[in-house]
């Protein structure tokens, strides 16, 4: 997985070097296109994977449990932060 870090870091270095070149403004749109292409490929690998297809409903329930867990934890932290720091300082109402 070191590869991923190295690729992102070399991107950051490149991005910093070429930050004044007008082309970098379009990086976002290119990313959108590439993501669309990769999601298609991901669909293909799901469609050719019998195990994923057979357990799709279980996968959905697992996804729901992880999401509810993560979102609840986040809501609690957001509430703690809001009531300790933000409510008094920045709040007008």
């Amino acid at each position, binding site marked *: *997985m070191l590869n991923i870090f190295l690729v992102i870091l070399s*991107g950051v270095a490149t991005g910093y070097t070429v930050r004044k070149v007008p082309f970098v403004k379009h990086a976002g749109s290119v990313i959108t296109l590439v993501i669309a292409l990769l999601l298609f490929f991901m669909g293909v690998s799901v*469609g050719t994977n019998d195990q994923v297809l057979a357990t799709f409903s279980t996968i959905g329930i697992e996804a729901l449990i992880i999401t509810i867990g993560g979102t609840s934890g986040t809501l609690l932290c957001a509430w703690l932060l809001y009531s300790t720091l933000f409510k008094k300082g920045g709040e007008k109402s």
Partner: protein
Amino acid sequence: MKQSLIYLLLFAAGVILALTGQLPDALLNDDISKWILYGLLFLVGIQIGSGKKILLAVKRFGPAIALIPLATTVGTFAGAGVSSLLLPGRSLIDCLCVGAGFAYYSLSSILISEFRGAELGTVALLANIMREFIVLLLAPWMVRHFGKLAPICAGGATTMDTTLPIITRYSGSDYVVVALFHGMVIDFSVPLWISFFLSL
């Protein structure tokens, strides 16, 4: 929303074409998508390196603004960690990987599916789409019970685009810049966290 729909349609098209066996063998080669993925990560890096908006937001709001993405990250990992106790088939690291998508379902599911297989990748896709929809549906409830930062933290990486309108509406326009800053920081942290968890 339109962009999310296009992404989902392409994913579904891939599934359907694969099921009907209409694809040439060349497309089933995993190496192609791996190289495209590295290209994508390089582009994400370029976007991080060439942007200076994050620093501007910090200057304007002071260091306290940095606590908001921190609360998001800590809360999500704690919650995803707890949920792994309910899922005997999934390890703690698997659940943290899925949680580290922070509703950025496209990039997170692609990364996870490439390095951990299509099964966990699909869990990540569904879990992170659900997270985005939960925020879109429940933002007013979140603000009422957990304060104005709640939909921002829950929205994860999407608070700079898809969930921004609903946050503006229920948390108020004072929080737009906060949401943008938060979305950018979380957005950039997604590939870093996922590759970190994948390397464990």
